[in-house]
């Protein structure tokens, strides 16, 4: 009983930290000392080969601070609780939003940059490219930090879209002539046109109207548009199920769309929103 109490007390006074070595997974650990040595932090993280590791404290503002193995680190002073360590003798520096960060390997994933810098999902991370367009970095993309100069990342929130003025005039005319209400939405590297309250064949689905989204590829209207998407998800009334080839989700603009996998030839210079509206109407009419 007494030993249990002591253990509980020790746990209460222990300092909780989180550690990572890949920037993606973070492990909980605790150190008994509020002012541990660097090596004690590595020990708490379960590192065996302590001498061959480098350690960084990730400060609450996201900056990295080098912690030497025999240097004491006051866990109370800066409110630090996250540490990154690498089996490496070399550090690669990069900046994100003007903040200095360090990494113990030459390759870093987009996900690791996102987690380390605390960049939320609404933002796209770009790698600054000198003399060229900045490159969007997805979670699974790897960036090589070993090149000349310090790599710089920037973040851009996805909340701005082109108005309908971005559409070719034939599309705008079609939308106006048919009295459609449209909205543009954006995702990384892509724009979608949402046609609001698109009428469905009466009695066929569990709703009468649905929003239809058409995703415009970069080279639209010459580049082909393929499938279309609906929100909310609709089911056939007769069967209570999704229509054939319309049961897969598609994440776009922070929403999970119902994907209608309907394909046809695309004629550059001829096809546009009109084509996709016809394709959707046909798909809804024939859905089974």
């Amino acid at each position, binding site marked *: 009983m007494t030993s249990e109490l002591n253990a509980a007390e020790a746990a209460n006074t222990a300092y909780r930290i989180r550690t990572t070595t890949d920037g993606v997974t973070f492990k909980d650990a605790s150190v008994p000392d509020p002012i541990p040595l660097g090596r004690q932090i590595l020990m708490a993280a379960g590192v065996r080969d302590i001498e061959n590791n480098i350690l960084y404290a990730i400060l609450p503002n996201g900056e990295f601070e080098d912690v030497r193995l025999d240097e004491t680190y006051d866990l109370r002073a800066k409110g630090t609780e996250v540490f990154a360590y690498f089996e490496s003798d070399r550090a690669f520096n990069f900046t994100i939003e003007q903040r200095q960060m360090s990494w113990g390997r030459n390759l870093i994933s987009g996900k690791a940059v996102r987690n380390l810098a605390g960049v939320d999902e609404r933002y796209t991370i770009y790698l600054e490219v000198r003399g060229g367009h900045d490159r*969007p970095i997805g979670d699974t993309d790897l960036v090589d930090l070993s090149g000349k100069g310090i790599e710089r990342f920037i973040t851009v929130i996805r*909340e*701005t879209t082109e108005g309908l003025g971005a559409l070719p005039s034939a599309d705008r005319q079609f939308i106006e002539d048919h009295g459609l209400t449209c909205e543009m939405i954006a995702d990384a590297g892509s*724009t979608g046109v949402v046609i609001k309250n698109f009428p469905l064949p009466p009695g066929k689905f569990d709703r009468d109207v649905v929003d239809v989204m058409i995703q415009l590829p970069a080279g639209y209207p010459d580049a082909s548009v393929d499938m279309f998407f609906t929100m909310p998800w609709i089911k056939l009334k007769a069967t209570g199920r999704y229509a054939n080839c319309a049961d897969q989700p598609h994440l776009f603009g922070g929403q999970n769309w119902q994907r209608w996998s309907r394909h046809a030839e695309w004629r550059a210079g001829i096809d546009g929103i009109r084509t996709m509206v016809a394709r959707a109407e046909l798909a809804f009419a024939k859905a089974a």
Partner: protein
Amino acid sequence: MRKIVARLLRALGVMKFDFLAETASTFPSDAGLAQGRLVVVRDGDVEKWACLTCPGGCGRTINLSLNPLRRPKWTVAIDFWRRPTLLPSVHQLNECGCHFWIKGGCIDWCQGGRPKDNSAMHGRH
């Protein structure tokens, strides 16, 4: 110099504009964007971004990609007095929700695209 003259001409009521353009070689920090400035990030021959503070008054930075191979995308043209024209319109999907064109340095609000309860911009037109 040209900008000073442009501001003087605006003060005299001879010229109208809400935005003047300037170029920078690197992406500006949010703090570096004053109202009424549109920063075009240009590296060599490549125009990468157009950055401005939302004219709707919410204070957000709007970063527009000028990369022609991606969407959404915009183009910016700058006249002799450094007044920018931005194509197509800019539509914010956040709570501010403003939707506007910038033509010859002037904000042209789209129908329903002007934030209602914002006095900051009202005096400027």
